[in-house]
């Protein structure tokens, strides 16, 4: 038999000015099941809490209702008090008679009646409450970092330096990402590789970091603190434990005409290769799609000449299972490529290139050793046109968003060109200049004012070739919309930043959401910008949206701090407001019919299918079970369940029905 205590708070005069608290206390005392009822000036004060604790002990109360402010204010306070008095804290409920009664209604009988109605409702609810225990989840203190670009590198180093182990997975043969391809970086024009390569080496040498290059995440299961991840280690065909990185193999490899991805196709590499001289690890892999041995069955030169005997053609993809507590997704971005701009002749005219190609041309380690030479004939262009917003902010192209980095890197490109070719002409077509970062606008002004780059506000309608020149047709909207035609030697398109091609697959593998452009979705656009909706999975860098380096690094450090925070205790405590499936022994006595509707609606993939078999292995029943580590307690599954086999602790069907009945039946 329930023995409920009701505690009516005056909140000074906040409640008692409009609600007749004494009357509420008196009437509440007469409700069925109520063993004690009292009103007091300040329930949340120390004496108020003591009053509650003493009453619970004295009257052997089994549950309490505190009628005062919003539960969003003091639920925690009173639950702690209940716990101190020796009852389960989840036997404490609050009746909100301040925010939702006394403050919004005038002093009247109706107001007092409403307060009493709410008290009665909560009394009926608390009668149906059950003892709940906070859920403890152990934490594996290892982080998985997916992607070895600057975002992944920063996150991995931060976590590793905090003393936790990190597993880094990079799909390419080397870490470094797009940043390793860049020439100089805005707004300081310091060399990208100079600042990046020490970090890359640090990752490789850090005792807390295990690096897997040429590997991909195949599968992710589990939940925060307890993820199980399968990593596919793609066959490198080179045993890195034996390889010394001497380079004999790639010097002798006969397949020398493979377009070099690192140089954006403007150079060649061999079939056994290390992508660039500063690669980490600086040991080669065999690109089987282009290797004579794998394609034609003959060659084997590298194996014959390798002094370390590291070449192994027989090795297959291997799978590695690891347990991690947190995952940082730093899978990066891509740029729009050919076929997207028929009007600009991109992909058709050799000298219409994209921003990343220009980076390689301008880079000292690039195919032209840092000289800006056009790809078609190697001449130094006299006149370059840069087109910002190529594809971005263009509804007709299906990309409405701003790619964010183009304004800055276009200014940088124009500057780099002018620094190398003083008498050259650089034109920039732009829509708006978005240089809203520290020292950014100053940088753009420098390009315009000191380096004499011609900025034309307007868009380019078409680029075509005529007499060996690229004719760029555009408009100058600041000059009465006059049409402009420039005969250029080279055109650089600041093509749109897009999500990686396999972003959708990655997101589905991780159970994280993504937007229509396949950029990964943060849990909250303002207040939780680095976490995903799946607890324990964080985002870093341009996989979440276009970003420059400083912003990427900040986000990477932020997501690392989230992981470090998670790892700061051995286990996590979670509110027990989670869904439970009606189960009793023997297991097949559940009323769940296995229709899986709940599984479909669950936003957290917290509901799992369970097959029950008899001793001979025959399937006898299919039902669901809830992973309490993943469940966030929204209860959508409960409303969906056709036969009420799943219920939400703290907001159970019984509790909610009692509330409705009590509210209406005075």
């Amino acid at each position: 038999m329930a023995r409920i205590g009701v505690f009516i708070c005056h909140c000074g005069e906040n409640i008692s000015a409009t609600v007749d608290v004494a009357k509420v206390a008196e009437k509440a005392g007469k409700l069925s099941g109520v063993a004690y009822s009292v009103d007091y000036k300040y329930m949340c004060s120390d004496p108020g809490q003591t009053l509650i604790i003493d009453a619970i002990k004295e009257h052997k109360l089994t549950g309490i209702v505190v009628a005062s402010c919003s539960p969003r204010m003091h639920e925690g306070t009173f639950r702690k008090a209940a716990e101190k008095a020796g009852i389960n804290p989840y036997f404490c409920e609050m009746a909100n008679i301040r925010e939702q009664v006394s403050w919004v209604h005038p002093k009247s009988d109706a107001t007092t009646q409403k307060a009493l109605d709410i008290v009665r409702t909560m009394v009926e609810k608390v009668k149906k409450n059950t003892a709940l225990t906070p859920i403890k989840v152990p934490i594996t203190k290892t982080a998985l970092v997916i992607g070895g670009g600057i975002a992944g590198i920063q996150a991995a180093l931060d976590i590793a330096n905090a003393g936790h182990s990190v597993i880094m997975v990079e799909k390419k043969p080397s870490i470094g990402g797009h940043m390793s391809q860049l020439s100089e970086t805005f707004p300081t024009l310091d060399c990208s590789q100079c600042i990046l390569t020490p970090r890359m080496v640090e990752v490789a040498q850090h005792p807390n970091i295990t690096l897997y290059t040429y590997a991909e995440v195949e599968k992710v299961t589990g939940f925060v603190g307890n993820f199980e991840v399968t990593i596919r280690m793609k066959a490198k065909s080179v045993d890195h434990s034996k390889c010394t990185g001497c380079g004999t193999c790639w010097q002798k490899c006969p397949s020398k005409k493979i377009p070099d991805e690192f140089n954006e196709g403007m150079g060649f590499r061999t079939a056994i290769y290390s992508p660039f001289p500063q690669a980490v690890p600086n040991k080669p892999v065999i690109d089987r799609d282009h290797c004579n041995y794998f394609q034609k069955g003959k060659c084997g030169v590298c194996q014959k000449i390798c002094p370390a005997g590291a070449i192994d053609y027989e090795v297959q993809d291997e799978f590695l299972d690891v347990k991690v507590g947190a995952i940082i997704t730093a899978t990066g971005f891509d740029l729009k490529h050919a076929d997207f701009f028929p009007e600009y002749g991109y992909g058709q005219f050799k000298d219409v290139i994209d921003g990343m190609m220009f980076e390689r041309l301008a880079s000292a380690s690039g195919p032209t050793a840092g000289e800006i030479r056009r790809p078609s004939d190697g001449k130094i262009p006299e006149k370059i046109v840069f087109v910002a917003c190529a594809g971005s902010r263009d509804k007709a192209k299906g990309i409405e968003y701003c790619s964010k980095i183009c304004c800055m890197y276009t200014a940088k490109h124009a500057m780099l060109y002018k620094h190398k070719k003083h008498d050259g002409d650089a034109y920039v077509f732009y829509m708006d200049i978005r240089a809203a970062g520290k020292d950014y606008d100053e940088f753009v002004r420098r390009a315009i004012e000191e380096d004499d780059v011609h900025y034309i506000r307007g868009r380019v309608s078409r680029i075509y070739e005529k007499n060996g020149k690229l004719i760029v047709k555009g408009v100058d909207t600041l000059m009465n919309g006059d049409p402009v035609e420039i005969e250029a030697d080279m055109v650089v398109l600041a093509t749109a930043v897009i999500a990686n091609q396999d972003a959708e697959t990655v997101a589905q593998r991780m159970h994280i959401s993504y937007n229509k452009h396949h950029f990964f979705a943060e849990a909250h656009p303002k207040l939780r910008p680095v976490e995903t909706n799946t607890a324990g999975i964080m985002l870093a860098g341009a996989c979440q949206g276009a970003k420059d380096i400083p912003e990427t690094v900040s986000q990477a450090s932020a997501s690392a701090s989230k992981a470090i925070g998670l790892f700061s205790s051995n286990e996590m405590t979670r509110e027990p407001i989670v869904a439970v499936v009606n189960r009793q022994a023997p297991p097949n006595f559940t009323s769940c019919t296995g229709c899986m509707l709940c599984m479909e609606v669950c936003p957290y993939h917290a509901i799992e299918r369970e097959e029950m078999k008899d001793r001979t292995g025959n399937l006898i029943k299919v039902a669901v079970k809830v992973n309490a580590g993943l469940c966030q307690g929204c209860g959508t599954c409960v409303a969906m369940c056709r036969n009420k086999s799943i219920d939400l602790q703290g907001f159970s069907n019984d509790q909610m029905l009692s509330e409705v009945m009590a509210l209406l039946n005075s």
Partner: protein
Amino acid sequence: MRIGFYPGCSLEGSSKEYSDSLFAVAEKCGIMLEEIKDWSCCGASAAHNLNHDLALALPARTLALAEKQGFEEVVIPCAACYSRIAGTKQEISNNVATRKKIERYIDLTLEADIKILTVFEFLQKYIFPVADGHIVNKLNQKTACYYGCLYSRPKETAALEQIENPMEMDKVMVKAGATPIDWAFKTECCGAGFTMSRTDIVAKLSGKIIEDAADRGAESIIVACPMCHVNLDMRRPEIKKQLNKEINLPVLFITQALGLSMGIPADQLGLNKHYVPTDKVVTCIVKKEA
């Protein structure tokens, strides 16, 4: 199925040969086209600048008549008519209130679900499946397919798959045995908006188109719009002055070119109605090898 035909003013006047050649090609392939009875002006050139309701009511009336006369598809060979009518259809089918209002103006009911075909959609859908049996000649020349503005803009009613680099007419020309060139002026402006008021602008813009086609070795320009044809064909004296040179590049409607490949006599296709002589096109033709 009965296919409706909407000529609009151009195909009855300045571009009679467009209409003639379309009917000749259709007839050759055994396809019947039926003119919408009592059609009215589409309102191009002026209405949409003066009164938005009128600009909708004019094409809507024609659409309503076509529906009433039981057509499920209507071919609209003129690009301006196509643009106006497709735009009206879109606006009306997206907005019930507008539809009700326009229905009241024209005193006819309107479903706006009729399918509108451009000339190249018509060729693709009805002529292509049976064309092989009828194509006896190879045009044997380089052609520049010129699409103009009205098929490619606005994006919502564009009849082209790739609006920046359309290939629809190029495909028809390949079928006719010609070699379409790759050039940059496919959807540039010919100056049609100024066709009467500022012929100097027309000469400048159309001149560039003709010059680029000639520079890239085209032997003829293929169009599917009466306005384009008028500007590229008729304004040659002004263009000559503008470019300071004479370019004798003939301009053909796509249906004329296809008709030639089907062995239809030049006169029947109205090739004798052009300002720039078209003999060179005809002399290029060779018999198709079996």
